[in-house]
């Protein structure tokens, strides 16, 4: 039995030879990289060369459980998956909840998967039993069916990462699901699995597992967080409706967008059709929580009314059926739920795929492609969207280009680049127009592209006009920012704050949270801060940690991630603001919303955004001209070998 929350084991599996080996997770690696994403990236650096092709056997997939996974620390179920993503060639990490605790209970902190099998397999892990098993009965089945079949055959106490047909057919839009619900691997990780003929990874717990180094210190910490979580008056809404709990605010702020991100969905009519009351009226929810989570946001949804009454589907975030499908496409909630279910089953990245379908319709509307090329009705219905989705899946006609992602569309369809919005090939989840907060700037600086990594800052600056004093309070209390750094971020003279200089600390914190496996969704995250996390770490592991050391570890991992991508050629030129953010507004009713400074409201153009990036790199201590870590920074962080 482990004396701490770590299993202290890394499992290596070579799919080509079928050989496995176990190595120790050393104290130094734990100290420097904590666990989860951090250790994943460290292992990736050791296993892969920078020029590896994403779909080659030499591109590893590394799965890591957060350091706290498997313990009763509230909401500590996050795992990370690291690989080189085929949609854009970046090296990065996706995270999901569930699987992390079960991996620990199965006896491992990380699993490194290399090579490629010559037949369809799934990887089964349970203590000393590590096997590549025949997946021929599961290959070709959708994620829900395949996972259910695995549970039926192996027992229900397993945890499963599984791909669907999108990954099997090597679409760059293919991702995986963890336990049928938690999305993992935007950018084509499903295709990486598919290229290895790996259908699923299954873990099953064993009796020999973990412990807590100092239970007497741990218990009051756990009790403290649980108490504040339970006292949160919003908790019942989060538990029962997930992020739909804040949906009504979208129709004032215009956060949900349609028409390929040209129009904000606002007003009472929109709220009546897609808001929380409409959702409650049409959908029954049953909360689903991964191990340790006491304020879950995942649900089994059951459609009560409409064409798809009776449909049941597990969804990672309840609002997705509205925010990613029904709202943007102008469909009813039951129709959005149907699409969400199909996308989960097939293992499609819904953000980028729906974005591409909207793009193709806009290309048709502007004469870039013809109706013969479009092949589907330009009026969105469930049928037309499913038609387009199937054409992408089967690589038919012009939709076959979409299967490789938006950068392929730009390259292969002349004139398309005028209408695209992406960051390093991924659709930015937070649009910077109307105000450039940390979430939307974070879409630009994330080495992996426009993904939702800093989407969950404290406080959320996706909400406009938060008083500077509130942001400063969070900077000090939540992120532990002090002294000179505070002075650089906050300008007391004009009561403003600098998004470029605040963002690095949020990135460092969220990265470190991924390393320990604690959820940083805002309704959980607000109950933690750097100091409580450090105390948890000390109690769980027996190794002393301070809040600053926690942030330092996050900074180290972020810099390692950026350095790995710099080695592939990623530099400042890749941290581009989408052209449409800079040159076109979003229409909020009849008002124009441009890319603007959060505090002053001043419009931001090419020069201003370059200055923002320069300040961001400077705050990180990087080479400002190249936008990558300097040698001095790597030395200071004890990152060597580059």
């Amino acid at each position, binding site marked *: *039995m482990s004396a701490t929350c770590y299993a202290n084991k890394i499992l290596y599996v070579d799919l080509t030879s079928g050989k496995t080996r176990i190595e120790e997770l050393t104290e130094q690696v734990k100290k420097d990289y904590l666990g989860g994403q951090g250790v994943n990236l460290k292992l990736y650096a050791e296993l892969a060369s920078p020029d590896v092709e994403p779909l080659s056997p030499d591109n590893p997939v590394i799965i890591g459980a957060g350091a706290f996974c*498997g*313990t*009763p620390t509230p909401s500590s179920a996050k795992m990370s998956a690291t690989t080189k993503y085929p949609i854009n060639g970046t090296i990065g990490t996706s995270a999901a909840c569930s699987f992390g*605790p079960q991996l620990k*209970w199965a006896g491992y902190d990380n699993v490194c998967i290399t090579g490629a099998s010559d037949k369809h397999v799934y990887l089964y892990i349970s203590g000393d039993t590590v096997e590549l098993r025949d997946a021929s009965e599961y290959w070709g089945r959708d994620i829900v069916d395949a996972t*259910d079949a695995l*549970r*039926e055959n192996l027992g*229900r*106490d397993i945890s499963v990462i599984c791909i669907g047909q999108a990954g099997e057919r090597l679409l760059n839009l293919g991702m995986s699901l963890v*336990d*049928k619900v938690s999305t993992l691997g935007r950018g084509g990780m499903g295709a990486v699995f598919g290229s290895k003929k790996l259908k699923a990874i299954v873990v099953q*717990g*064993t*009796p020999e*597992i*973990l*412990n*807590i180094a100092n*239970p007497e210190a741990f218990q009051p910490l756990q009790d403290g967080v*649980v108490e504040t*979580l*339970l006292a949160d008056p919003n908790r019942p809404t989060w*538990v029962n409706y997930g992020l739909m709990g804040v949906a009504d605010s979208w129709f004032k702020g215009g956060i949900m967008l349609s028409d390929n991100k040209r129009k904000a969905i606002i007003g009472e009519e929109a709220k009546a059709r897609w808001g929380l009351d409409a959702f409650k009226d049409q959908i029954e929810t*049953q*909360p*689903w*929580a*991964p*191990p*340790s*989570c*006491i304020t*879950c946001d995942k649900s089994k949804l059951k459609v009560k009314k409409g064409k798809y009454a009776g449909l049941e589907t*597990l969804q990672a975030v309840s609002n997705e059926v509205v925010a990613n499908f029904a709202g943007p496409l102008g469909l009813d909630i039951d129709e959005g739920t149907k699409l969400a279910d199909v996308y989960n089953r097939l293992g499609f990245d819904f953000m980028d795929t729906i974005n591409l379908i909207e793009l193709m319709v806009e290309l048709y509307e502007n004469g870039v492609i013809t109706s013969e090329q479009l092949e589907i009705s330009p009026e969105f219905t469930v049928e037309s969207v499913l038609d387009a989705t199937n054409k992408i899946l089967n690589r038919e006609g012009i939709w076959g280009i979409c299967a490789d992602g938006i950068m392929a569309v730009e390259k292969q369809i002349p004139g398309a680049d005028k209408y695209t919005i992406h960051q390093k090939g991924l659709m930015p989840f937070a649009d910077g127009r109307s105000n450039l907060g940390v979430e939307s700037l974070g879409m630009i600086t994330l080495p992996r592209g426009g993904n939702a990594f800093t989407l969950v800052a404290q406080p959320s600056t996706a909400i406009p006009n938060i008083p500077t004093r509130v942001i400063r309070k969070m900077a000090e209390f939540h992120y532990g920012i002090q002294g000179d750094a505070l002075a650089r971020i906050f300008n007391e003279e004009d009561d403003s704050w600098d998004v470029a200089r605040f963002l690095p600390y949020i990135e460092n914190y969220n990265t470190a949270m991924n390393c320990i496996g604690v959820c940083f969704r805002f309704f959980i995250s607000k109950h933690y801060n750097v100091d409580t996390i450090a105390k948890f770490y000390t109690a769980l592991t027996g190794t002393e940690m301070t809040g600053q050391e926690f942030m330092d570890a996050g900074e180290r991992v972020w810099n390692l991630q950026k350095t790995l991508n710099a080695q592939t050629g990623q530099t400042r030129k890749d941290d581009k603001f989408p052209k449409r953010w800079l040159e076109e507004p979003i229409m909020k009713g009849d008002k124009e919303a441009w890319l603007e400074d959060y505090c002053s409201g001043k419009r931001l153009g090419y020069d201003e955004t370059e200055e923002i990036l320069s300040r961001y790199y400077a705050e990180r201590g990087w080479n400002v001209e190249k936008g990558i870590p300097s040698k001095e920074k790597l030395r200071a962080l004890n990152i060597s070998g580059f």
Partner: protein
Amino acid sequence: MTEVRIKKIAKMNAELCTRCNQCTIACGLEKFDSIDIEKQYVRLIGESDEVKKIKLTKGCDLCGKCFDACHYGAMTLTFKEVVRK
């Protein structure tokens, strides 16, 4: 002679269970001093990912730790005074 006993009343509602496993972890830590999902007296019984029944198995002494750990209302433990003359 009057005897007063405290009766523990355990109620389980599997429909409210989210499978967060806080109950099983709490039991393992309390009774076996380790986070051992095989060794606990609380069992979540059902098919696939459904929980049809929450069961306390032989060996459980109703210490109440699993009930304290359940924050979804699936397990509640109440106390009733029973007076015997």
